[in-house]
């Protein structure tokens, strides 16, 4: 009955993924617990600690496991009804090593293109284009066994993209990368949105999500913590950061005299202000003291704080 009701739900054109009442139980453990959410097209971060249920979510999305309860709709198609059609629209980049090491990147990506349903010639052409796109043009005829971690991650991304998916599932795409490799991978992920490919990126690195994703889904222990646009989650904290050069102590004393609490963090003054009146008061204190004002900005919450608040650990 619930299934029939689900089928009648209208699919919003902007909704890429719709999950309702999704539960997955294994013997002795509940991996996902009554998860209901909608994910729009674009770049979405699926955030959670290890064991939060991210990989289980991916397996369910790919139709590689059956939910205990609930339904998943990808691009308007119920995964239970037509997992093959769903898979033909998805790309998947696992976290773990998964590439045949004795083959060249061109062969591997081309073969996975064919496995995605592309004709042979088209698969070879697209493999070449995609490897160029991810920065492996020069190395595409080398065996993957000789690749660095960063190159293997790029090859994994290439095989996920070669079938021209509507949605690509990235499982910890920056895992094991050095800072430069991480930045390059995030830049690639960020570009995918401009190609019309939506991204669902599972990670436990909130900085990565904050950098590239415009939507965030946080899960913990298989339960939904929070879901929403990244910007909407980064609330104002009521803390204002003031850069007055070497005069921080002078400003803190002046603010105290005016009745505003302030501290010095990393050489910058952080003052707690409540409303426009106190903001004006802070400005006046700086002016009255004749201090140079290099920067005045409100501090936003980080996703870490949102996550901790959501899981009840912030206190």
């Amino acid at each position: 009955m619930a299934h029939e009701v689900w089928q009648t739900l209208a699919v919003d054109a902007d909704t890429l993924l719709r999950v309702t009442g999704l539960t997955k139980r294994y013997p002795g453990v509940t991996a996902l617990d009554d998860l209901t959410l909608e994910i729009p097209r674009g770049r979405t971060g699926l955030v959670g600690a290890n064991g939060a249920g991210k990989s289980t979510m991916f397996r369910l999305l790919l139709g590689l496991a059956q939910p205990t309860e609930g339904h998943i709709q990808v691009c308007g198609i119920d995964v239970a009804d037509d997992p093959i059609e769903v898979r033909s629209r998805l790309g998947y980049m696992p976290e773990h090593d998964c590439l045949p090491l004795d083959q060249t990147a061109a062969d591997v990506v081309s073969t996975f293109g064919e496995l995605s349903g592309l004709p042979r010639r088209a698969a070879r052409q697209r493999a070449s284009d995609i490897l160029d796109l991810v920065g492996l043009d020069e190395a595409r005829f080398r065996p993957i066994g000789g690749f660095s971690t960063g190159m293997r991650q790029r090859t994994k991304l290439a095989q996920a993209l070669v079938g021209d998916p509507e949605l690509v599932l990235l499982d910890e795409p920056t895992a094991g990368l050095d800072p430069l490799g991480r930045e390059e991978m995030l830049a690639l992920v960020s570009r995918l949105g401009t190609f019309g490919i939506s991204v669902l990126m599972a990670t436990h690195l909130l900085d990565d999500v904050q950098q590239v994703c415009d939507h965030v889904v946080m899960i913990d222990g298989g339960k939904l913590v929070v879901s929403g646009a990244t910007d909407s989650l980064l609330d104002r904290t009521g803390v204002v950061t003031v850069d007055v050069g070497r005069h921080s102590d002078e400003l803190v004393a002046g603010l105290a005299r005016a009745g505003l609490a302030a501290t010095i963090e990393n050489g910058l003054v952080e003052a707690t202000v409540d409303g426009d009146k106190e903001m004006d008061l802070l400005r006046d204190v700086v002016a009255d003291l004749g201090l140079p004002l290099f920067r005045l900005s409100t501090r936003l919450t980080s996703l870490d704080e949102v996550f901790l608040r959501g899981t009840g650990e912030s206190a």
Partner: protein
Amino acid sequence: MSADAEIPESRRGAVYDRGYRPYEGPRGRRGAATGALYRASIRRALGLRRAWRQKVAPFVLLGVVTVPAIVNVGIGYITRDQPIDRIEIITYREYVGVSSALLLFVALVAPDVMCPDRRQRVLPLMFARPLTGTDYVVAKVGSITTILFAFSFLPQVVLFIGNMLVSDSALDYFTGHLDVLWQVPVAVLLLAVYYAVIGCAISSLTDRRIVAGAAVIGLFLVTSISSGVIVGESDSFDGNDGSLGALINVLALPLHLRDVVFLGHVDPYSQLGGVDNGGLLAAATYIVVLCLGLGVLWRRYRWVER
């Protein structure tokens, strides 16, 4: 004056970011994916697009299994004008049973086609495509069957054409051996499917090629030796001395069927010779072994089935 200004417009280069081009052409589903995996597995088994070392084993084997045909035809050619009976070192029926070479090939190729997918954890990538566990098994078993069939059938073609050419009358030889034209492919197909299913089933149980290869050879050798102990060696038979114990000989099982195909009955000098309904029992055992092998494969890859 800038450097650009010094270069004529027509000779200036440009760097283009080719960006991303969506694919808008035709797209296949399960059939296309299965076909792609089948072709990729054949390439892997033959060592194509791989280092030269990977190509040695399959093509040396093809050479080895073709030698008897070439020798047979060569002797026929040398003795074609001699007033002696035609010398045949191997018959079409016996040629189907060049199984020791094929056995080695199966022990080498089946693990190479199956084990790395599991060991290198490629399976999740494959099953994230429009491909089911059944499709995977069909592609893998199909690829090995195809290669075994080709490697068993091509030498027979060499033998047939060679014999035809060195005979007194090619047309008479052809018309006199028409039954071989269906017997050979049927017998070879029975053998190829059998070895492929057993090789793939055993290889699916481990991710280590060496273990799988040893297990394949071990299964054939152990059952062959056990059957020899129970029934006795067929070399010493006077005819119809066999017993039901021959059915545990996994190595010889498809050869009994081969005999049924070529002779219409089990070879009386084989380990199954003289057993009532021996051909039927061999066929039933053959089917049971195939079902067991396919059952193992289905079980090993069922996790992607819904």
